[in-house]
């Protein structure tokens, strides 16, 4: 591979020079330089908001840079659209899902492809996609409409979508976010296979493990600036973490103190519920949670996690079984009554369910309370009280926002999550149900959120954390249950020694 790269004078397949891209109020990329050698796996490392995604969106034709130039095979290129970038063989898998919900998996994958004739054969493309999916080791059912899939499954479709094209330069934006450890390893194997065929891969991540495991070179960005590019062989996790955070991190395996459990807070007995796919997705789940306990719910995406969270918070009707909260039956109560009883729900889909993206930060902070008398009379909102309350929360929960009146959608993922937590925790809940609360966040934000949870349990709050990140569950929970196809397939102590048993349970082996 290295020999081939000599074809270009510079030795670089991609050479981005001094790329600057700014948005109103943010300078996302400040004169960033980035180079890529043909056939390598290049990791782009940085915290949230470091400018990684923006830089790659410039390369894939989504953003036009304010200044700077891009050389492809030593020739100056400008991409005005993703289509133009695709013509050069540059394709990107985005962090946000970009799928057409009403079309099937196979249709989404072949969408816009030149290989498709005017009249297409559904069976044929489904077979083709099935072939691709087994080659790559990412399992999907090609004939199913995308809206029926879980987020994790949708992400697999996204990756397959790009791999289906004849891609020479593949960009992956945090691809492992929702994948299981096995799927992650399979993906990495496939990436290596791709590079041996002459494909070049850039993947954006903030996970040091992944960089060390799969990348040849790594470029670290911090706050829109280049920090450094290293050969992975010449560096280590500690150094990279330091470059990424801009400060020295202690990398001791410090576990948090887990509180002792108190009396029973939530009791779930044999609940059954129907999922969006119209088949039963909860098939008799029972467990209990004590005050001051964090219960981790592990499992591969799409095994009933979302339905469980929605059943507890009243968003999904339970067909049979009961949910008792502090001894009272709250099964199928109206969500408002459940909220008032002291249950907070932190949904998986932050932008879609957690906030109203077009409303301001302040409006989002009082979304569950605006009708209470402390924020105004029956008719008129008390602006002063609201502003005061919101400023307090913004300060207290370190929400980074230029002002309380800007739309919530302009905040970064980590700050949106802080906003949601600020709203929920400030309401003094007795039970918090959180689904993938730290997904896609950087180390600093994850730590802050975990600390918030641990502070809550010390005051006797019970927390259910549903997460696909086993490390997270090991770190904060005291007990783990594994969901598999709508059933609890085992209860485990939260101990890394149990990882094999837990992994087996996640795969359906009891």
């Amino acid at each position, binding site marked *: 591979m290295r020999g081939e790269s000599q074809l270009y004078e510079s030795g670089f397949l991609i050479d981005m020079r001094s790329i600057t891209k700014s948005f109103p109020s943010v300078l996302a990329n400040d004169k960033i330089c980035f180079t890529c050698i043909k056939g390598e796996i290049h990791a782009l490392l940085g915290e949230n908001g470091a400018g990684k995604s923006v830089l790659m969106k410039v390369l894939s034709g*989504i953003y036009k840079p304010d200044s700077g130039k891009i050389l492809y095979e030593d020739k100056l290129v400008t991409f005005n659209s993703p289509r133009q970038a695709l013509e050069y063989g540059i394709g990107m898998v985005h962090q946000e899902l970009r799928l057409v919900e*009403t079309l099937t998996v196979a249709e989404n994958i072949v969408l*816009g492809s030149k290989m498709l004739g005017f009249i297409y054969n559904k069976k044929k493309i489904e077979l083709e996609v099935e072939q691709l999916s087994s080659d790559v080791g990412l399992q999907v059912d090609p004939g199913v409409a995308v809206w029926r899939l879980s987020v994790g499954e949708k992400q697999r479709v996204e990756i397959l979508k790009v791999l289906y094209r004849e891609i020479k330069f593949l960009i992956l934006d945090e691809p492992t976010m929702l994948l299981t450890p096995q799927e992650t390893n399979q993906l990495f194997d496939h990436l290596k296979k791709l590079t041996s065929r002459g494909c070049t891969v850039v993947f954006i991540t903030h996970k040091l493990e992944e960089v060390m495991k799969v990348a040849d070179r790594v470029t670290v960005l911090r706050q829109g600036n280049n920090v450094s590019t290293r050969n992975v062989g010449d560096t280590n996790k500690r150094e990279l973490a330091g470059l990424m955070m801009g400060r020295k991190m202690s990398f001791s395996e410090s576990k948090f103190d887990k509180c002792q459990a108190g009396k029973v807070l939530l009791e779930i007995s044999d609940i059954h519920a129907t999922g969006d796919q119209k088949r039963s997705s909860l098939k008799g789940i029972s467990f209990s949670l004590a005050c001051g306990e964090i219960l981790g719910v592990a499992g591969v995406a799409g095994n009933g996690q979302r339905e469980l969270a929605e059943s507890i918070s009243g968003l999904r009707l339970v067909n049979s079984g009961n949910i008792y909260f502090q001894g009272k039956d709250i099964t199928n109560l109206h969500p408002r009554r459940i909220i008032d009883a002291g249950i907070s729900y932190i949904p998986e889909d932050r932008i879609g369910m957690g906030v109203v993206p077009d409303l301001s930060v302040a409006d989002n902070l009082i979304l569950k309370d605006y009708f209470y008398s402390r924020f105004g009379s029956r008719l008129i909102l008390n602006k002063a009280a609201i502003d005061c309350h919101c400023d307090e929360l913004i300060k207290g929960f370190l929400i980074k926002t230029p002002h309380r009146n800007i739309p919530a959608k302009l905040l970064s993922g980590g700050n949106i999550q802080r906003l949601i937590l600020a709203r929920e925790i400030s309401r003094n809940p007795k039970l918090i149900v959180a689904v993938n609360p730290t997904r896609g966040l950087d180390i600093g934000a994850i730590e802050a959120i975990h600390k918030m949870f641990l502070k809550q349990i010390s005051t006797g709050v019970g927390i259910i954390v549903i997460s696909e990140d086993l490390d997270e569950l090991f770190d904060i929970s005291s007990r783990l249950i594994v969901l598999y196809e709508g059933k609890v397939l085992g209860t485990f102590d939260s101990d890394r020694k149990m990882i094999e048993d837990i992994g087996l349970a996640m795969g359906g082996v009891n």
Partner: protein
Amino acid sequence: MLELLLYSAIVAGTPLLYATLGEIITERSGVLNLGVEGMMTVGAFAGFAITVITGNLFLGLISAGISAGLLSLVHALMCVTLRANQIVSGLGLTIFGIGLSSYLGKSLVGVPVQVTFEKIEIPYLSEIPWIGAILFQHNFLVYFAIITSIGVYLIFNKTKTGISLKAVGDNPAAADMAGINVFFVRYMAIFFGGILCGLGGAYISLAYTPFWTDMIISGRGWIAIALVIFSAWDPRLAIVGAFLFGCVDALATRFQVMGINISPYFLRMLPYIFTIVIMILSTKKSMIGKKALSVPAALTLPYHREG
């Protein structure tokens, strides 16, 4: 009696079918065009005027399609390129279309048209007792409407054009990423939608009434917009819906002919009551399951690439 009623249901339902199909195509691309009534009026006028001048029905049809298509391109320019509010632009189109046609058509009021569409009896099929007389003794435009609906259905579900169109209407960002030209697809969908509305209008002025008068479309464009929802954006259901409404329309006329003493105003109101009832029923149905998702997710949302 029933035979005659069903026959006139098809006759009265055909213009609705054209307009509904046109609007389905437009909305599938994510653009709402409330200018249906206006485009139908322009089509009716252009078709009638050209036929009177040239004496050629097909020239009339072509000019009906093209004039309504051109009018719809104004909507495309406003909503796709300039990203203006689709509702305001569509309403403007309706008011403009009706006004322009009335103004230009003053001298055509009461003018007879020399030629009209002949009934085509389809060999063998038209001889089937009862059914033959209802289904297979119509003019060219009726058959063409049904063929077009089936064609649109096949394009939606069996062709690349169909998935591109659905993708653009459902998630334009995803379509853009896949290399589909969102703007081109929307322009084309709006244009073809306009052409079909124009043909629906021409059917009224050339085959149904056939003469020219102000307000000749009399609200059928609005019914078509409601029918799009009724049919859940599916061309097959559009056929059912259009003829069902044709039936209500025919019933109203029949009552009058039979001298049943009901106020004509009440009868003319019937289709609209029916529209409201159908709308309520179709939303009810959509509460359960899949139906809700047949609404193009990006309907009325202008698209612009981020950055």
